[in-house]
């Protein structure tokens, strides 16, 4: 067998090519030019003028990717990212409104409060599994819908800013807002980048990273070896929810400067992040790469819709096709538990 014969393109690449072809067909169906559409996506994402937009979109998306990747690394799945994110967002907004503090301290405190709140809420799902044998898959999802509903109610009634007619809180004090870096990109990007680095380092070199990875490969092995599985589940879910809560607060304090009902959910960061994490099986570096790719894809999608009037939801279709292709042909996502 020649060396060339053994060279097989990496599955992810094949999946992307397949998705591009199917997407191209869809574009033709809507009467537009696929080449133009794809060119618009690439340009819209990566052209120097547009890069800040891409980075701004990437910040919450990569954040949610990390949030999904941590439990996935350990063979657990957290479907409650939306709920944890809005909990964090609302806590961040409310904390900054209620705690008068100078400049950076206000923002920092608000972010910390949001992180802790999101973490605790996610840990609740783990507790449901430990105490009541409710699978985390189900409990995290149910809790998410619950949180979204409660937060929505809070923003529309008790915490509403009654000066505007819209379901949103009051504007966050200027002191608590995250400083802008370039264009729409704010300091939140640096925070997420730091978190990403931390996750990678812990995964590779820390004892808890090793233990989580072993659990992901074989949970019974980890338990038999002395790993405290219940504590580990709580910890992993806390970390996951904490990052999700942090993302929520960053979007609120860095971009919108108030909590607007539904605004955190419309961009579907959670599901895209979950898909990116699944693509990499929870492995941080791969997940982040996938997350960045999806962010570029979606940002490009906006440009594509502006320039060619091909609906931007096409990019979500492309993402789904990639995931399905890999799930079917390469056993993507097979978890130990």
């Amino acid at each position, binding site marked *: 067998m020649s060396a060339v014969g053994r060279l097989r393109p990496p599955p992810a690449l094949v999946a992307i090519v397949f998705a591009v072809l199917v997407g191209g067909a*869809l574009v033709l*169906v*809507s*009467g537009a030019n696929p080449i133009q559409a794809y060119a618009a996506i690439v340009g819209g994402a990566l052209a120097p003028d547009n890069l800040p937009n891409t980075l701004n979109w990437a910040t919450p998306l990569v954040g949610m990717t990390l949030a999904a990747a941590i439990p996935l690394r350990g*063979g657990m*799945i957290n479907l409650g990212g939306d709920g944890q994110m809005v909990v964090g967002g609302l806590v961040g907004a409310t904390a900054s409104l209620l705690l008068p503090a100078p400049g950076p301290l206000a923002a920092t405190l608000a972010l910390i409060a949001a992180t802790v709140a999101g973490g605790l809420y996610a840990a609740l799902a783990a507790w*449901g*599994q*430990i*105490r*009541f*044998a*409710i699978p985390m*898959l*189900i*409990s995290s*999802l*149910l*809790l998410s*819908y*619950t949180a*979204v*509903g*409660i937060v*929505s*109610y809070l923003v*529309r*009634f008790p915490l509403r800013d009654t000066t505007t007619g819209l379901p949103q809180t009051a504007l966050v004090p200027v002191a608590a807002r995250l400083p802008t870096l370039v264009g729409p990109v704010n300091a939140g990007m640096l925070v997420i980048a730091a978190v990403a680095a931390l996750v990678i380092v812990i995964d590779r070199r820390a004892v808890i990273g090793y233990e989580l990875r072993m*659990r992901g490969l074989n*949970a*019974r092995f980890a*338990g038999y070896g002395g790993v*405290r*599985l*219940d504590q580990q589940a709580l910890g992993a879910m806390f970390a996951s929810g904490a990052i999700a809560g942090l993302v929520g607060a960053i979007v609120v304090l860095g971009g919108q400067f108030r909590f607007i009902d539904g605004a955190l959910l419309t961009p579907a960061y959670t*599901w895209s992040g*979950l*898909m990116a994490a*699944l693509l990499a099986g929870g492995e941080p570096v791969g997940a982040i790469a996938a997350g960045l790719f999806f962010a570029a894809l979606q940002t490009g999608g906006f440009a594509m819709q502006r320039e060619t009037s091909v*609906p931007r*939801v*096409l990019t*979500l*279709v492309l*993402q*789904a*096709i990639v*995931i*399905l292709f890999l*799930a*079917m*042909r390469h*056993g*993507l*996502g*097979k*978890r*130990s*538990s």
Partner: protein
Amino acid sequence: MTDFLTPFLMQSAVQAITPILLASLAGVLCGRVGVFNMALEGQMLIGAFAAVVGSYFAHSAAVGVLAAIAATIAFSLILAYGATVFRGDAVVICIGMNLLASGLTAYLLRAMFDVSGTFSDPSLVGLSRIRVPVLQAIPILGWGFARQTAITWGAWVLVVIVTLLLFKTPTGLRLRGVGEEADAAETLGVDVRRYRVVTVLASGALVGLAGAQLSLGAVTVFAEDMTAGRGWIAVVAVMLGRGHPVYSAAACALFGFADAVGLRLQGQGLPNQLTDIAPYVVTLAALALSHRRARAAVSA
């Protein structure tokens, strides 16, 4: 009680339960044969969209229903083959299917009808109602069924059919065996793959009906992501009912009832955001109460 549960309320409740009931039957069948179906949401959305497309172009609700069934069965091929022949992870495939359904229907909505958000048109023909006047005289339950579509009636009949199928026929016995111990079924000559594929596709037809009821049953309209979590509630109903068609149907009825009560209380000042979450909270509580405390043994 009867002025709390008005005839109109009961009718809306029964109508609202229909898609969830059909989807939960689909979930029960898939679960019993060993395929965890979390894609009910996406399947229902595809069905709802296809129903509208069929009704629009053929000016017929019946064609819409057929289109819904056909489209959902085709969509279900992904899960049917992905989880069996291709040995993919059912959870990941289902997540992918849900997202594909959401994006694809939104895309086609714009591509085919040039609108975004919602689509409604005078030429859309909705499902007609079957009036059974005698039922109007029976309080509560009778009120619920006095004016419903054929699909709604069909849904409850299907509960009986699915129950009989699962527990009284050889096909049902084999289906349950495949789901419990595929290995054992294989050695007795039962084609595991075929049973799973056919079951997933057949249950896809059920969800297609659910979608048609959703978009053509009450108001004839398609809206992006109009399933709004109904598929997930069906998944939850299957869990609560432990994969038994009658208990899952009971769970659906419970949710529908809670929903109707919530709507009623809304009129008295209870915000709808809180009533909307009632099914999830109820399910969490039920799951917590029905599961005994996890053993002392450490579990994954």
